[in-house]
């Protein structure tokens, strides 16, 4: 909270993703592509295959323009964006890993110089020297992955580091090796898929058949590394993280299953178009395969980012930059005194610090649908229980007065009509809506923190008692603050649910 808060309408997640996704795609391609080029050059020189050499030269131009400019600058872009979106996390990471980044920078320097010399060197250098530069390029590019991989994996699985604070514990953390193998596989796979797009532009010929088969070999080899490495990677994530994720957010965990389907789709397409009818490869099929490849990789990155919630650095700093180490201070003094930058509107400041990095009132991950028609007291209750709401949110660690201020700030921005009026509902349907809004955030029938056992098959009187006591059932559970109509409708809805839920 030592920093101003950049309050923009675009969701943080979207802004970050739009730069980061492009960067990870291009940077992995930059590594695999380097290997692809130099290996292919080596084989072509050995066989004196001038057609192939010509194709490789063409690809180098595209490769250099994409990686050296786009890859490098989107990398710089990530630096800029993390400093704006989460300066505290950036500060923490930089202070612990500055020399890792500095080491990475030296490999980056070699990589850029080698890429440029490789590009300009096609015509003027002997093929042996030229290949030497190609190998240097690949070595440096892969080493920069090696180093960055340490920091990226650290954020999800800091492991022993949380206890020791020792650089190497954080760097060689539990998912370091599996992630390194996985990413190396991704590099190889993407190189094959990208090269396929270049190859698809050639008219049907023996040569085309040859390179399409060759490229498919690359992509399949990459895939063969990726799939087992992914299984290994998942197994290395401490089970408390995956268990919480499974319980709190089903989507990312389900995406694991989906990702196997992507992988299977790529594999099948590659075998058909790459080996059975390679000369028919066209831009459309090549692009579809590449999109599947990128979708697979994208879903992996998204999974990794999602299971890390509610943290930005697991067990160390939450997504909204509140720090685990400061919990006691927050609980005693509140958030406001810790804020280095305030605007004079405490409610707004609290909202920015506690919620705004993941939610907006009305745009990205909006709060309106969740709170329209509810009361300050209810909102305050959910803030108190933020960490038990499904979705895996950071706890609100400020003091009670701040919870009130924040709840009021949110309340006046919500629709203040009743839930019945907003949704034009009554009877059982209204009851279901009331349940979704007032209970469903924390208890899903047949799902997250299911309370069917206590909620199904009671008498009216018991329901009334339960709702009267709702605020006392648990510290994190808000009282029932709906009006009589809502209460009746909710009870009607609960009564309609058959024994055993659903």
């Amino acid at each position, binding site marked *: 909270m*030592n*920093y*101003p*808060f*950049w*309050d*923009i309408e675009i969701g943080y997640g979207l802004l970050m993703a739009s730069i980061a996704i492009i960067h990870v795609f291009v940077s992995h391609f930059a590594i695999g592509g380097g290997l692809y080029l130099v290996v292919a050059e080596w084989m072509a020189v050995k066989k004196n295959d001038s057609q192939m050499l010509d194709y490789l030269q063409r690809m180098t131009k595209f490769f250099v323009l994409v990686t*050296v*400019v*786009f890859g*490098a*600058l989107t990398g*710089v*872009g990530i*630096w*800029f964006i993390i*400093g*704006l979106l989460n*300066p505290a996390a*950036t*500060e923490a990471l*930089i*202070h*612990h890993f*500055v*020399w*890792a*980044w*500095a*080491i990475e*920078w*030296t*490999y*980056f*320097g*070699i990589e*850029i*110089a080698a890429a*440029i*010399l490789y590009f*300009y*060197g096609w015509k003027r*250098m*002997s093929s042996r*020297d030229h290949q*030497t*530069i190609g190998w*240097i390029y690949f070595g*440096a590019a892969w080493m920069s992955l090696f180093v960055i991989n340490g920091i990226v994996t650290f954020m999800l699985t800091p492991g022993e*580091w*949380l206890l*020791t604070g020792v*650089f190497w514990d954080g760097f060689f953390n539990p998912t370091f090796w599996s992630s390194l193998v996985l990413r190396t596989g991704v590099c190889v796979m993407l190189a094959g898929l990208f090269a396929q797009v270049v190859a698809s532009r050639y008219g049907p010929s023996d040569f085309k058949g040859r390179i399409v088969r060759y490229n498919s070999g690359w992509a399949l080899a990459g895939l063969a590394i990726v799939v087992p490495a992914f299984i290994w990677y998942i197994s290395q994530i401490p089970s408390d993280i995956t268990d919480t994720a499974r319980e709190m957010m089903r989507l990312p965990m389900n995406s694991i299953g989906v990702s196997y389907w992507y992988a299977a789709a790529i594999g099948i397409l590659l075998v058909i178009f790459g080996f059975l009818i390679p000369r028919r490869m066209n831009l459309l099929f090549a692009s579809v395969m590449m999109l599947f490849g990128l979708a697979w990789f994208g879903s992996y990155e998204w999974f990794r980012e999602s299971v890390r919630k509610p943290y930005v650095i697991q067990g160390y700093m939450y997504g909204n930059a509140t*720090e685990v*180490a400061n919990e006691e201070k927050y609980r005693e003094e509140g958030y406001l005194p810790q804020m*280095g*930058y*305030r*605007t*004079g509107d405490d409610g707004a400041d609290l909202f920015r610090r506690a919620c705004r990095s993941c939610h907006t009132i009305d745009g990205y991950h909006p709060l309106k649908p969740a709170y329209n028609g509810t009361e300050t007291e209810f909102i305050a209750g959910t803030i108190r229980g933020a960490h038990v709401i499904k979705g895996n949110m950071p706890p609100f660690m400020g003091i009670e007065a701040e919870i009130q201020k924040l709840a009021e700030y949110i309340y006046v921005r919500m629709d203040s009509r009743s839930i019945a009026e907003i949704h034009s509902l009554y009877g059982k349907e209204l009851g279901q809506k009331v349940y979704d809004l007032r209970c469903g955030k924390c208890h899903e029938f047949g799902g997250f923190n299911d309370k069917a056992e206590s909620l199904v098959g009671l008498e009216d009187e018991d329901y009334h008692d339960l709702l009267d006591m709702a605020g006392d059932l648990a510290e994190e559970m808000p009282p029932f603050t709906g009006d009589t109509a809502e209460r009746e409708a909710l009870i009607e809805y609960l009564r309609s649910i058959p024994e055993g839920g659903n």
Partner: protein
Amino acid sequence: MNLPDYNFISVPLWLLSSLHILTLTLHFAAMNFVFGGIVVILLGRINDRWNNPAVQKLIKLFPTAMAATVTLGVAPLLFVQMVFPKQIYSASIVSGWFWLAIFGVAMLAYYFLYGAAFTKKLGRQALYLILAFVGLVYISFIYSATFALTENPGLIKMLYAAGQSGLIINPDVGSYLFRWIHMILGAITVGAFFVGWIGRDNEEVLKAGKVFYLWGMVSAMVLGFVYLFTFGDFMLPFMRSPGIWWMTASLILSLGSLYFFFKQKFLFSGTMLFVSLLGMIATRHYARLVHLADYYRPEELTVKPEWGVFFIFLVSFLVMLAVIWYMLHLFFKRPAK
């Protein structure tokens, strides 16, 4: 639980500052080549400039120099964030959108430079170079405005209270206008050095380089002094800091560099210019410390050395230099066949 604290630096401050100043000087040298080079090419008195082989040689070098600029810019940004994270992130958040746009603009400038280098239509080159130049001017302005803002934490607080959406550019223009123009003139001077040196076999280009080197330096010095006079209350502490010695040394060195440049002793001239640039950057560094002294003193940072990893960095750094040298050797050696 006692979690590892991040309020520390992992090598002594002097080492971190030296690395920052050294890498920033390298970054400036590469950037100034592109920036000043474009100015001299566009405005220098060169007949039929687009058909001049020395001009074409320079234009072909720009994309590579831009790659070097970006690459060499990463390290100083990293090191400076180690020492001044609070100031830099806070100032950049206030100007968030303008700050973020830097990398996009840099990317465009880069592609324009490639456009100028690769295009077959020579008439297009002027347009590409102008577009790239406009991008670089934007970047330099935002950097000057934002880094000037880092030196005024009180102003950051005020600006943030007035608007949180990152659409504010440092309104205290007086604090950085001269600084910015001084930097631009300095960049043209350094660029002119490269133009003269690389185009030394071409009379017209060498002459244009000399003209811009001389007048660029004179006007940069004048603006530098004007900037110094805007220091106000900070003047006295600055005069007492090592900054003043660096500044004096840099001035003398740049005059020496000018002398040797006109004698076409480029090695001497270039070395002196480089050290002078380094001195200017060190001067800026002390000016920042003086401005921040009431709020923040980096020398009070906790130092928790991590020599092991630092050593690996040092070795990697030397390996980088050696490997790049080796690759250049391969590239420039006469082909065996």
